[in-house]
C-alpha cells in the first residue's frame, strides 16, 4: 500500500543546489548593498557641512599611525626580494641588473599591493571594529538623534582619509623598500648609494610609478569603504564586532587583488 504522506526525497544534488543558491544569493545581496552604500558616499561627500576636523583626525590616525608598520614591512620586502633574487641573477650573469629588477617589482606591483594588504589588516579591521562597536553601543543612533548625519561624520571622513593616505604610504613604502634593497645588495658586495639609485632611476620611469599610484587610490577607497560598510551594518552583540572586523579584512584584501588584476590589465593595454 502506498503511504499517504510522501516524504520529499532530498538528493545530494538538491542540497548542493540549495547550498550554492544560498551562497550566491548572499554574495549578490551583499554586493548590491555595498554598492548602494558606496554610491551614497558620492552624494554625501559634496554636500555641506564638511567635517574637516574629523577628516584631519582620521588622516592622522589612518596615515601617520600606520607609517611605522608600513615602513618596516617595506624595508623587509625590499631586503628579502633582493636576497632571494640574487642567486638567480648570478646564474644568468645579470647581477648588475639586480637594483633595476627589484625597483621595477617594488614600484609597479609589490610595494602598492603589500602596503594595501598591511593597510587593510590594520586600518580596514580597525574601522570595521570601531564602527561595529559604535553600532552595538548605540553611539551611531545617538549621533543621529543629536542631529548629526552619522554617514557623513563617520563614513565619508574615514573613506576619504583611507583614499588619500594609502597612496602616500605606498610611495613611502617603495622608497624604504628600495633602501632595504640597497642594504640587501651590500650584504654580498659593495655598491654605493648613488650608484644604486642611479641604476634604479634608469630602470624606473614615470609610466611605472603613475599607474601604481593611481591604483592605490582605488585600494584605499575600497579598504575604507568595506571597513565602514561592515562596521555600519554589524550585527548587534560583541560577536558582531569581531565578525565585522574579520570580514572587513578578508573582503578588503580580496578586493585589493581584484582591483590589482583589473589595473594590471588596463595598464598593459595602455603600455602596449
Amino acid at each position, binding site marked *: 500500500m502506498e503511504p499517504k504522506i510522501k516524504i520529499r526525497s532530498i538528493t545530494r544534488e538538491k542540497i548542493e543546489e540549495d547550498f550554492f543558491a544560498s551562497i550566491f544569493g548572499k554574495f549578490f545581496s551583499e554586493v548590491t548593498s555595498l554598492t548602494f552604500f558606496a554610491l551614497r558616499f558620492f552624494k554625501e561627500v559634496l554636500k555641506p557641512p564638511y567635517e574637516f576636523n574629523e577628516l584631519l583626525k582620521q588622516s592622522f590616525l589612518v596615515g601617520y599611525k600606520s607609517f611605522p608598520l608600513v615602513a618596516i614591512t617595506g624595508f623587509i620586502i625590499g631586503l628579502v626580494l633582493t636576497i632571494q633574487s640574487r642567486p638567480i641573477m648570478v646564474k644568468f650573469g645579470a647581477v648588475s641588473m639586480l637594483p633595476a629588477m627589484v625597483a621595477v617589482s617594488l614600484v609597479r606591483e609589490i610595494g602598492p599591493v603589500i602596503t594595501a594588504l598591511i593597510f587593510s589588516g590594520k586600518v580596514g579591521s580597525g574601522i570595521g571594529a570601531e564602527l561595529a562597536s559604535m553600532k552595538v*553601543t*548605540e553611539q551611531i543612533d*545617538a549621533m543621529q*538623534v*543629536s*542631529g548629526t548625519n552619522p554617514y557623513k561624520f563617520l563614513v565619508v571622513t574615514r573613506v576619504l582619509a583611507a583614499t588619500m593616505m594609502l597612496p602616500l604610504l605606498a610611495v613611502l613604502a617603495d622608497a624604504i623598500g628600495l633602501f632595504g634593497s640597497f642594504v640587501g645588495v651590500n650584504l654580498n658586495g659593495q655598491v654605493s648609494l648613488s650608484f644604486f639609485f642611479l641604476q634604479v632611476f634608469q630602470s624606473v620611469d614615470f609610466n611605472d610609478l603613475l599607474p601604481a599610484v593611481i591604483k592605490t587610490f582605488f585600494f584605499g577607497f575600497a579598504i575604507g569603504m568595506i571597513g565602514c560598510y561592515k562596521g555600519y551594518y554589524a550585527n548587534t552583540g560583541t560577536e558582531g564586532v569581531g565578525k565585522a572586523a574579520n570580514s572587513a579584512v578578508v573582503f578588503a584584501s580580496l578586493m585589493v587583488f581584484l582591483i590589482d588584476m583589473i589595473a594590471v590589465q588596463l595598464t598593459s593595454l595602455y603600455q602596449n
Partner: protein
Amino acid sequence: MTENAVPINIEQDTLRNGSFVVEMVHLRKSFEDNHVLRDINMVIKKGENLVILGKSGTGKSVLIKCIVGLVDCDYGSLIIFGEDTSQLSERQLIEMRKKIGYLFQSGALYDSMTVKENLEFPLRRQIDSIPKEKLNSLIREALENVGLVKAIDKMPAELSGGMRKRLGLARTLILKPEIMLYDEPTTGLDPITSKEISKLILEVQNKYNTSSVIITHDMECARLTADRIVVIKDGMCEAEGSYDELKNSTDAWIRSYFE
C-alpha cells in the same frame, strides 16, 4: 482594556491641541513577521512625565524610537508639535529631532571622546559658530545640573554606571529639548543611584518644563516620576492612569506590576 483603564480615543480629542506635544494614532510597526506595535493610540501632554510600563519585548523602546525618528512606523499618524511627521522633509525632521532628547539605555556615550567632548559634540553640530566662552559655560552648566563637574576631563570608560547615565542625561539636556525620552534610565543601577536619577528626571521637568516619556521596569522610578502611566501589552495600550489608580486596579495583571 481593563476596568481602570481610560480608553485613549484620539479621534474624540481635539487634535493639534496645543497641550499635546505628541499624538500617536493607530501606530503600527512590524519587523518581518514580528508585529511589535499593533495599534498604539497615545498622547503626550505638554510638561507631563508619562511613564510607559510593559513586559520586555512589547515594543516600548520601538515606540520611543519612532518618536525620535530612529525607526519609521509602518502605519498610522505620528504628530509631533502639531506636525504630521510623514509629511515632513528630511531637513524638517532633523530640525524637529533637535527639540527631542533621547537618553539611551546604555548611555551611548562616545568612547573616544572625553566627558567635555561628549557634551561639545551635539552643541557644535546644532549651534553654528558658538563662541568658546559660551560653549564652556553651557558645558559647565550641564555638568553642574548632573553633579559631574569634577569628571570633565575623564573618559567615559573611567565613569561608573550612574555617572555614565548622568553624563548621557547632561549630553541630552545641553540642547534644552522640549521632549525628553528616557529608555530605562535606572536599569543596572543600585537603589540609591536609581533614586538620584529619578530625582534628576523630576528636576529636569521642573527646571525646563519638558515633556518626558520614561520607559522603565523600576516601579520606584515610576512612582517618583510619573504624572501618568500607560501600560503596553502585545503592542497595544492596555491601561492608562495615575500610579495609584493602576496600583488599585481590579485587573490582577495590571496590579502584578505594582506588587
